[in-house]
């Protein structure tokens, strides 16, 4: 059976970002259908049935998220589209924004109609210049065509959509950090509860959804929630984009049903490992997910299976690493990122990420001590579940898993002041 392409249907097609071309191919028909023939409750019902989950990384059921928005509030409600795609290894939302921005706008309309929202913001990563330009162009086109504005698609429903560019902080992809930043403040995540559904942007009820999540909505409305749910596996509806990178022959964005085996993604779609070398490790859901070993490659790519394995599907960024990759240096690289991006608000993250990075730097420089490994394990424990937001857990997850699963490489590095991998490759070449 050919794999169903939903959000990636028009990837690579230069015409797809033009409104007229998209309209000829059914663009905005689902939004029209929702607005004309469905009640907001019916839309939410379909989305709940679809088992669509938040594809930014947390995997929270989208229909349920919407249902938390208070019905009888006199405050305005907002939709914030999280386009601050910054998780290392993740580059899927960028494809939607660049190739098919109207699909996102249509998803925004459907969501806003379902929840009763008349103002939506897209918070787009500052470095995403081309995606921003293309999205902004699509928004302008949509306004011109009366798709956005006081009468959405000619119906009695108003919706304004603003595109706001971030300034380059990973933490502003955390939903409450994003809200703070959007409000013009420093992007420090908020204490929860209250959750954004109740107190969000400007203190008002707010839905925050990822670009890809929203982009799935048109097809769900077109074909029904059950159709979408059936594409995926239990409690994990539909397909999602996997951003495959690392030592694979064909890195790229692949849309696959949830529940696809990791092996299939790497070996069939990704064409296998570079130079046909042995697979050593896989980061399954962006830098903040726990690393998997080659033995775990048969795992099913869905939120629940990966959680059970002590990792997470996260943003769907799969990074494959072959036998030539030094796990010490890989972790050093990852922890550099978290130390750099920690917002500095709460203690375990601010101090922990920096300390971990410094210790790893020392090990990599050949000044490691065996007791450092114990300290790193303790840090991983102390940084888990103690902070305001998930960034700290995101730094602790790879830390704990790398040190646990590749302990021998760390020990070797400390003992011989050089990488196990490099040492071995030299031995082989003799």
């Amino acid at each position: 059976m050919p794999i169903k392409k939903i959000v990636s249907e028009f990837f690579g097609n230069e015409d797809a970002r033009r409104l007229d071309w998209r309209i000829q191919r059914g663009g905005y028909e689902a939004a029209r259908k929702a607005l004309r023939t469905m009640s907001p409750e019916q839309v939410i019902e379909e989305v709940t049935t679809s088992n669509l989950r938040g594809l930014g990384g947390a995997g929270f059921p989208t229909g349920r998220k919407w249902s938390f928005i208070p019905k009888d509030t006199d405050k305005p409600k907002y939709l914030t589209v999280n386009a601050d795609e910054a998780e290392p290894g993740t580059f899927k939302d960028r494809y939607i924004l660049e190739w098919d921005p109207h699909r996102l706008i249509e998803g925004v309309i459907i969501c806003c109609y379902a929840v009763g929202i008349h103002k939506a913001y897209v918070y787009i990563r500052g470095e995403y210049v081309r995606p921003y330009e293309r999205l902004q162009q699509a928004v302008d086109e949509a306004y011109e065509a009366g798709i956005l504005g006081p009468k959405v698609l000619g119906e009695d429903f108003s919706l304004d959509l603003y595109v706001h560019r971030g300034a380059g902080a990973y933490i502003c992809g955390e939903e409450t950090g994003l809200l703070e930043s959007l409000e013009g403040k420093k992007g420090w995540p908020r204490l929860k509860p209250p959750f954004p559904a109740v107190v969000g942007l400007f203190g008002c009820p707010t839905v925050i959804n990822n670009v890809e999540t929203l982009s799935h909505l048109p097809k769900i409305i077109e074909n029904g929630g059950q159709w979408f749910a059936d594409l995926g596996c239990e409690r994990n509806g539909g397909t999602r984009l996997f951003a495959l990178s690392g030592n694979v022959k064909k890195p790229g964005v692949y849309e696959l049903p949830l529940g696809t085996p990791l092996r299939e993604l790497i070996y069939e779609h990704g064409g296998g490992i570079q130079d046909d070398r042995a697979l050593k490790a896989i980061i399954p859901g962006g830098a903040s997910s726990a690393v998997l070993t080659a033995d775990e490659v048969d795992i099913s790519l869905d939120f629940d299976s990966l959680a059970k394995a002590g990792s997470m599907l996260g943003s769907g960024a799969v990074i494959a690493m072959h036998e030539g990759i030094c796990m010490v240096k890989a972790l050093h690289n990852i922890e550099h990122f978290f130390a750099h991006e920690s917002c500095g608000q709460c203690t375990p993250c601010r101090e922990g990420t920096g300390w971990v990075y410094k210790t790893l730097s020392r090990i990599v420089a050949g000044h490691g001590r065996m007791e450092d490994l114990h300290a790193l394990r303790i840090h991983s424990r102390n940084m888990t579940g103690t902070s305001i937001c998930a960034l700290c857990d995101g730094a602790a997850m790879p830390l704990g898993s790398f040190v646990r699963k590749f302990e021998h490489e760390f020990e070797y590095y400390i003992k011989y002041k050089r990488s196990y991998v490099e040492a071995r490759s030299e031995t082989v070449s003799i």
Partner: protein
Amino acid sequence: MATITIDGQQVSVEPGQTVIQAAEKLGIYIPRYCYHPGLSIAGSCRMCLVEIENMPKLQIACYTQAQDGMNVITQSEAVYQARQAMLEFLLINHPLDCPVCDQSGECDLQNFYMEHGRYDSRFIENKIKRKKAFPIGPHVLLDQERCILCTRCVRFTDEISKTHELGCFNRGNRSVIDLYPGKRLENLYSGNVVDICPVGALTEREFRFKCRVWYLRSEESICNGCARGCNINIHFNSTRTYKAGGRRVQRIKPRYNPHVNEWWISDVGRFGFEFIDQNRIEFPYRREENELQNSDWESALDQAAQELQEAYEDDPASIGVILSPQLSNEDLYLAKKLFIDALQLPNIALENPWEKRGIEDDFLLKADRNPNTRGAHEIGIKGSAREILEKAAKGEIRFLYIFWHDFNAPEAREALAKVPFIVFQGVNWNSTAERASLVLPGATHAEKDGTFTNFEGRIQRFKQAFVPLEEARADTEILKQLAAKLGHPVSYLDPETIFIEWQGIGYDEIDEYGMMVGSAPALQA
């Protein structure tokens, strides 16, 4: 009301109260850095993590609201481990320069380390270098290396002083607290950031290196800086004053009173204590051959009584008494007994019409920079000194008794020049004391017991911290002896007996946050 269990003990709290507040009600102190009851919740130091039954992770006690049936554990291996971890994290980039840190001895890093420290450090990386000990305003120094980024100071300037001078800059472990560009911490409440800083990052420039805090003694008092009557503690040391230029009072700290000042005081009050130890009148003085000469109490009071008696016999209206709203209720009550009730003098005044009014705001500071104007009015002493001085200018005043005030406006000086005999009773030298015929050294509020009544009528007790300097005496003592010499002896043992006569209750019966005028049981009866 929600009833929750903390460490096996039950407590009921109002809805919205947090676990940390509920614990405090039970006398359980949960370590904290960023939490301060007077500020919004930051929840960032993560020191107050506690275990709550049926919750998957440890929760911060400062933010988690107490809910009926909640079971909280603050003493468990997991909680201990978390506190130890947070403390370890906080200390890795802390300079540990306790031996030269003013906060040492009252530092929460030290305090919590006693119980939660690791004692064997495993941090061998380089510490982050930051800016050390630089002034950020007239009263406060910032040491970014000692800072643990609890943001109490930032929240204070945002939420309490609303002056927004401080912010948190940069990211991750490069974060620093600093001034916003072009700003200085120059508001009238800047000293409070030093109090709320749980570590030695913000220190007082005035107190810096003056005295180790463990040498300080403390006494409860009331600020005399304005009519608000903020509750304070006077921190003093009478034996190690060499670093502080001989001053006994080393610093003033606010004392919590929910009805008056909460946790705060203004810089006017905080740094206005130098008068207690400087420029003091230390002995009685008599004018001889147009020079003020050191005298003794007996002859000084004899002369005062004699001059007053002669003027009184000539004409009671030739006597003027200008009392001061700096005096305590007890001082003023006794003065009223003597000058108004016994002698029935017609010329009694309280206020100095030339006195500068201070800045008044909607927070603490009152324009009236005297602590007891309201108390004097309640006792029955009021009125401007202008009338008396006008009479003096016309040569109608023969004997003028001035408490504290400095009348140095040209017209006032001219009037004073026409008065044959001036008695000055006060604590500091001023132009009026210098031209007096007789100078009697009174005591500051730090040196005597008494009460002030604040602008809204709240009677508040201050306690004697130390004895008056040199020969100075409590004003009640001086008036008592003068009264005896004038043939109107009074039998009060101490200020409290005066207070009992005035209010019908003893000092111990005053509520810890003061009592409103007219609320004493004896007066209601």
